[in-house]
């Protein structure tokens, strides 16, 4: 079985691509693969490209998307905190905010 340093099999839970498949075919299966295989990818990229940091075009929608993803992340952390502290009133408020954000994103 193919394993990474921590001894667990490296496989992308999102699309099922295994490290073995990546090594054999050189293709990743989905965007999540880039997180899963990052440890084995980084040294490869270093030899393959002029650098390892993207210096090109930034999609215009990405700025607001990144902001959105960050606020969702922050709210989720706050929600977890509130639940741990048994502050259910605050938790409910945060949950409402999250729902509002997510429904905005849907539309």
């Amino acid at each position, binding site marked *: 079985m193919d394993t990474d340093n921590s001894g667990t099999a490296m496989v992308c839970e999102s699309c099922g691509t295994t490290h073995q498949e990546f090594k054999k075919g050189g293709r990743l*299966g989905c965007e999540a693969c880039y997180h899963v295989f990052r440890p084995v990818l980084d040294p490869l990229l270093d030899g393959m490209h002029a650098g390892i940091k993207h210096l090109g075009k930034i999609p215009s929608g990405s700025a607001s998307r990144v902001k959105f993803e960050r606020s969702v992340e922050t709210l989720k952390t706050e929600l977890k905190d509130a639940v741990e502290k048994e502050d259910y009133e605050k938790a409910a408020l945060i949950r409402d905010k999250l729902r509002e954000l997510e429904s905005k994103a849907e539309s």
Partner: protein
Amino acid sequence: MFHNILNSDGKVKKGPKAIPVTLSTRIRLARNLQKYPFPGRAEASEKRAVLSKCIDALKSVKGLNDSISVEVDDLSELDRQILVEQHLISPELSQVEEGSGIFLTPDRSCCVMINEEDHLRIQVLRPGLDFKTVWQAADAVDSGIESAVNYAYDGDLGFLTACPTNLGTGMRASVMMHLPGLVMSKNMDKVINAVNLLGIAVRGLFGEGSDANGSIFQISNQQTLGESEGAIIDRLNSTLKSLVEQENNAREKLLQDDRAKLIDKMSRAVGILKTCHQMQSSEAMDLLSLIRLATDFGMLPEKFRGLADKMFIEIQPGHVQFSAGKSIEPSFRDELRAELLRNQFVRAPSLTFNS
């Protein structure tokens, strides 16, 4: 409908005139949508969903509304072959099973492949050497699509692609070059090794792994991450400039050292094209290459350069087959190819030159 677009030259705007050495410029951007697996890992239903999302997004892009879209599935083998021969789609896309598509502008300057190796492969091409115009057009189509969909994108790694070799900008900028001088002087291997060291790739006429035919090569950037699109294009451009110079030097040297031999070759090419009755495509490519070279030397009228470029494509097997209007045997294809060439070159003059 599709045939009309493939074969009518009517809507193709008169592009820039064919110039020596550089045949055409192309930029290809690889993009993927968020949340869907890349095509190689996607179920048929997921590919269908991506295809329809991409087509909708493309139709919403300003200036692309009179384009046509078609599923690869709905095209005959011959249609696909013709698209490959016109360099509009890759041989890989022509072989896909289902859920892939093609989006093509009427002037054929922009062709988007959907569900090839990535969800989107945006391609813009133009005759001659013109990265500025081609980049602006590709960038505009890309931004237009992006206002309708979310791309798989990472702040550090840029646009995420199925193959890490395309990561970052997702951009492959390339030019098709005619390098008979370097081929005849047996310098091509040396040149390929030298440019490879600069992160520039050299391929044959039909992309990865194909043999170079008619001394035509595709020169492109190998690296897509760690530099901006502008920097990649600048670097490629300076390599191209030096390649053009080396090619011209090789031609001059051949004309000095092997004048009779070279002129004999080019003159014979004219003679054979005027009189042939059977012609395989590889021989035709080599003869047309000599016609283009003779035109560059000023030994044939200027219009023969554009004619050579047109015939480089029209003598390909799919195009010859299509011109027959019915299925034909390979041996008859060689006869038909010879006839097509003869018709074009029957009134070609002898080479003119100062001795």
